[in-house]
């Protein structure tokens, strides 16, 4: 099909003003929050599942790839059109369709910002647990695609644990339902496999999520350390003591400095690390837990502790953590963040290794991460315009991922594989494991048009393990 004709057909589906195809217009859609870039052929703004279906059918008939896009905050290249094609923009499908308190469910369109849902629920005394740091702008649809985490996921689980139903447009254009408001449906758990599939198995157009009652009491405190190892050990000790805080977050000196300059949260600039610890639950017994945590912090040579006495103080402690990625932009023009995750007890050991890798490649690395579930976020800082540096950063990043795998961890806790970590999948899986994933991909998308070039590296199973594309 000629491009002009294709554009006309897209316009007939979504309306004339809702297709972007000029070179200048498309540049805005060649990137996400990762370092990868690729231009789409066209960007379309869909407002309904039927439109998404028609666009997908059109892409099929023209034999060109298509992929969904929310806010583009993706950190691994999952939203970058690796092989060109049609971007199906979902930001206009941004309605909260139903909040059903009796059944503890909300029905939303994929373009709803995570924060918008929280803001609608909070006055009713409810919330939606997954809370990625990007929640002000990242969409629930994007969260589903990436199976996003967030600080609260330590206690409450990640997106997949809170998504109960999906409406999905399959890669052949068919609109189907998976799951629903109830908890059990017979058959394979297709919803479970679509969550976190990075838009490679279809496009999600409606989402039913679990909503929960806000906790009666929340206690937030900041623990300040003169050594990263001590802070790391505190985290391990809290978990080992059988205490399950709602969140357990850590930031190191480099990040603290950037954050403090950017948001003035009142963090100490001379500290080596801080922990943000939050407990939630019933008021009874809370003091008892707080005391135990204080003891553990003291045992690990905490320098100072600050307890939030009001909601304002709590927000102040959090604003720095949630704005951390943006804040480091003050220090260097570019950063690469990976999110290797390790068994919790290995945290101090891996943090040390990360620092060594930074020294080896001569790149500064800041750490801000979900310490409680072993989910690292080393921010490697550099200048993208310097090609030599870019190469070093990529190598350092892969070495960190390998270090995580070496201690029994994984290469991505919540940011996804996308394009960025495609080849690192070999650190973790053999060709048989990857072949099983390809069975799923080929079942849903036999023509490999739905967000191709992501998540699972291509393999040659016939030749066996020697075909590893390391």
């Amino acid at each position: 099909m000629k491009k002009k004709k294709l554009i006309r057909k897209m316009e007939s589906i979504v309306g004339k003003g809702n297709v972007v195809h000029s070179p200048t217009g498309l540049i805005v859609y060649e990137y996400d929050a990762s370092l990868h870039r690729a231009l789409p052929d066209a960007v379309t703004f869909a407002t309904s599942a039927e439109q998404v279906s028609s666009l997908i059918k059109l892409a099929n008939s023209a034999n060109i790839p298509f992929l969904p896009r929310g806010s583009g905050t993706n950190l691994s290249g999952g939203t970058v059109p690796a092989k060109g094609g049609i971007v199906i923009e979902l930001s206009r499908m941004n309605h909260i369709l139903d909040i059903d308190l009796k059944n503890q469910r909300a029905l939303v369109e994929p373009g709803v910002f995570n924060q918008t849902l929280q803001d609608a629920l909070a006055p009713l005394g409810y919330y939606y647990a997954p809370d990625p740091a990007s929640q002000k702008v990242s969409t629930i649809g994007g969260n589903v695609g990436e199976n996003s985490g967030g600080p609260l996921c330590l206690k409450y689980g990640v997106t997949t644990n809170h998504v109960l139903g999906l409406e999905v447009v399959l890669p052949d254009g068919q609109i189907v339902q998976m799951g629903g408001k109830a908890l059990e449906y017979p058959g394979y758990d297709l919803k479970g496999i679509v969550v976190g599939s990075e838009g490679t198995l279809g496009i999600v157009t409606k989402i039913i999520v679990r909503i929960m009652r806000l906790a009666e009491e929340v206690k937030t405190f900041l623990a300040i350390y003169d050594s990263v190892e001590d802070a790391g050990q505190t985290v391990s000790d809290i978990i080992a003591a059988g205490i399950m805080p709602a969140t357990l977050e850590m930031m190191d000196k480099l990040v603290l400095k950037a954050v403090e300059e950017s948001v003035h949260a009142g963090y100490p600039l001379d500290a080596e690390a801080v922990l943000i610890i939050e407990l939630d639950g019933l008021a009874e017994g809370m003091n008892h837990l707080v005391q135990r945590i204080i003891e553990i912090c003291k045992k690990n040579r905490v320098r100072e502790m600050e307890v939030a006495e009001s909601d304002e103080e709590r927000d102040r402690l959090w604003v720095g953590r949630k704005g951390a990625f943006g804040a480091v932009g003050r220090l260097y023009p570019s950063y690469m963040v990976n999110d290797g995750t390790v068994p919790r007890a290995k945290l101090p050991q891996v943090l040390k290794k990360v620092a060594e890798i930074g020294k080896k490649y001569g790149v500064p690395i800041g750490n801000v991460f979900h310490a409680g579930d072993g989910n690292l976020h080393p921010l490697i800082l550099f200048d993208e315009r310097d090609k030599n540096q870019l190469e070093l950063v990529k190598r350092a990043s892969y070495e960190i991922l390998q270090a995580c795998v070496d201690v029994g961890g994984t290469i991505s806790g919540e940011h996804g594989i996308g394009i960025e970590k495609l080849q690192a999948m070999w650190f973790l899986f053999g060709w048989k494991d990857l072949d099983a994933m390809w069975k799923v991909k080929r079942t849903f998308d036999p023509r490999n048009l739905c967000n191709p070039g992501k998540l699972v590296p291509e393999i040659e199973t016939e030749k066996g393990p020697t075909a590893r594309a390391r």
Partner: protein
Amino acid sequence: MLDKKIRTRLIEIVGKAGLKEGEGVKGYSIDDLLPRAILFPRIPEEVEQIVILALEEGLNIIPWGAGTQMGLGALPSHVDFVVCLTHLDRILDQDTENMSITAEAGMRLGAIQESLRHIGPGFFIPLDPPCAEEVTLGGAVAANTSGPSRFMYGTLRDLVLGIEVVIPEETGKVQKTHAGGKTVKNVSGYDMSKLYIGSLGTLAIIVEVTCRILPLPEDRATVVAGFPRSEAPWACVQALLESQLLPTSIEVYNRETTSLFFKHAAYSAKEEAWAAVRLQGIKEAVEREIQEIEKLIRSTGATKFSILRGSKEADHWKQLGRLGFEVRNTGAWSIGLRVSVPISMAQKISDTIAEEGVNINVPFYQLSHAGSGIVYAHVPLYEGLYKEREETLTQTVNALRKQVLEMGGSLVVEYAPAPFKERVDVWGELEGVFPIMKCLKKKFDPGTILNAGRYVGGI
């Protein structure tokens, strides 16, 4: 009977002691069909070898754990081998600092819990499926069974971190593969574990599972209350759900259920309906929850009220978990249903089930995970009674299913005599997504050697 060549090869794989034939297969029937042999592999590699042989010879395999869920599923198209995994029973990794455990699929849940209980301050897998002691970890995963505590902790879909399975590819390419890992957060590739959980062993044979563990709670207590009217406990449930209290389990059950096996002081025959609320956590929190729940329950007209602790408390939940087992003990032709509806509709469907029971003159023994919208209904039947009521029971189950579907839920026949399974689709019809499931089955098990015919739509 096995032919000589196959028997020789089987003995090469599992040893003489690992092969049962003839009289030895009794007790392993599936919907009245007896397998030709029972195999007991000792290591995952033997499972692979069995699968290779089955592929070459075109023989059908039924994976088997403790056998407690073998009533689940449609009639098998044929049965050759039962592969019993109970000899794969080792703990491979107990990492309490990471809060995870890895065990072979045939290890019994009770044994795993026992082992975890003795480490440091004590840990547990937060899972309490029916017959929680004897089920195997792999069996629980394959059937995705869960119990009352799913209200707080979720199901195996929330607890499993990683899994190792044997996929029956075409001859000579049997694939033992792993998915996931041992970290609580992991988005490296598709979340393949989800596919195997609840797949009833139709895609692959599970040989190893890694799942989350938690420290044993500081305190545990259960509030049990009896009500003269059936709607009263549901009012308590709704109030509890709207509160900020954090119970582990909220159960509602009827007089029939209590009559079956409670000779307990907490119970009497007078009350129509019962509720049990389990509380676990820090002492102070549990105490306060008990007080509030007592107030709530008394205000809704409870005529019987007790607080259980210690071994009485543990036994109470153990007994509730054996309801289905006890019903089947009463009559070999019994039928069990599992209904899942949006939470607020559980009461309505529970009432309907009770009314239907009166209409057709059979008792429904009900137990609901009320906070999760799940209702179990068991009908104890012996052969004569089943045959007499076959037609009306068929109509009742179909009518119930229709109503459940209209509520946006599902109804599964968890066990039933084989003739009933010929009359009623145990899983119910699936729309839309079924072609994908069929295609997945074809890709993972192209020779259709695993549990043929027993899953949804005859997969």
